[in-house]
């Protein structure tokens, strides 16, 4: 590594290291974004889709859960926003788990076997609402990691 730095080189190096050091937080932000978007798709498909699509999104959901848990758990950097978003008793986790439970119970107990457009629209809206906590987390993490 070069032993002498001009001010320009020093600033360039800071910028470069800054970009690299923020990368794990950016990936974490993208994971929250994917989880949010996947939530909007997952619940309507699980409730109204054909069997093959239920199996597919079920497997993808499992894969996403394992991959994101592994990545967030093994991060070798602590970022304030990622830590905030991932706290088990934090607002993002608590609201998300609560909202997902509501969508699950509505789909299980209230939606009839042959649902009309109204029910389908209602479940899509509920799934979109449930996606808000991870999408908000993604926005906060990505904004901070720019």
């Amino acid at each position: 590594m070069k032993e002498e730095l001009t001010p320009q080189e020093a600033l360039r190096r800071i910028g470069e290291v800054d970009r690299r050091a923020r990368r794990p937080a950016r990936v974490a932000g993208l994971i929250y974004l994917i989880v949010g978007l996947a939530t909007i798709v997952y619940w309507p498909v699980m409730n109204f889709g054909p069997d093959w699509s239920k199996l597919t999104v079920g497997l993808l959901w499992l894969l996403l859960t394992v991959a994101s848990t592994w990545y967030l758990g093994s991060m070798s950097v602590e970022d304030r926003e990622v830590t905030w978003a991932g706290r088990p008793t934090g607002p993002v986790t608590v609201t998300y788990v609560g909202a997902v439970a509501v969508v699950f119970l509505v789909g299980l107990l209230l939606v009839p076997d042959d649902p009309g457009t109204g029910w389908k629209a209602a479940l899509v809206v509920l799934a979109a609402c449930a996606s808000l906590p991870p999408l908000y987390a993604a926005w906060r993490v990505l904004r901070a990691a720019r």
Partner: protein
Amino acid sequence: MSHANGTNAAGGAGGVESTTGAGSHPRHELDDVIHAPVRLSVMAALAVTDRAEFRFLRDTIEVSDSLLSKHVITLEEAGYVRVEKAFVGKRPRTWLALTDEGRRAFHDYVSVLRRLTDGSPS
């Protein structure tokens, strides 16, 4: 142009003489402890995180364990970096974080750099 007689961490052709003491030119305000490539990289990486693991810093800065250790000790002795060792299962993990003083010093260092580069071609 006069040069102060303090410790020179970065002097030489192409570099900037950074000193600890006299002189009104901004270069005299450059912190010798930070103004070295590896230490600067460590400070820059820690400045954007709450804390980072040793191996992450090593891979990010692309230096050997021993070289990084040497510079981390210098930063720790200056009071800029805090080192925490912990075990995850049987695996030892070393975490590094900037102290408040280190964060302040890095902020000041970057301010001086910006003053030095303002108006100069990059």
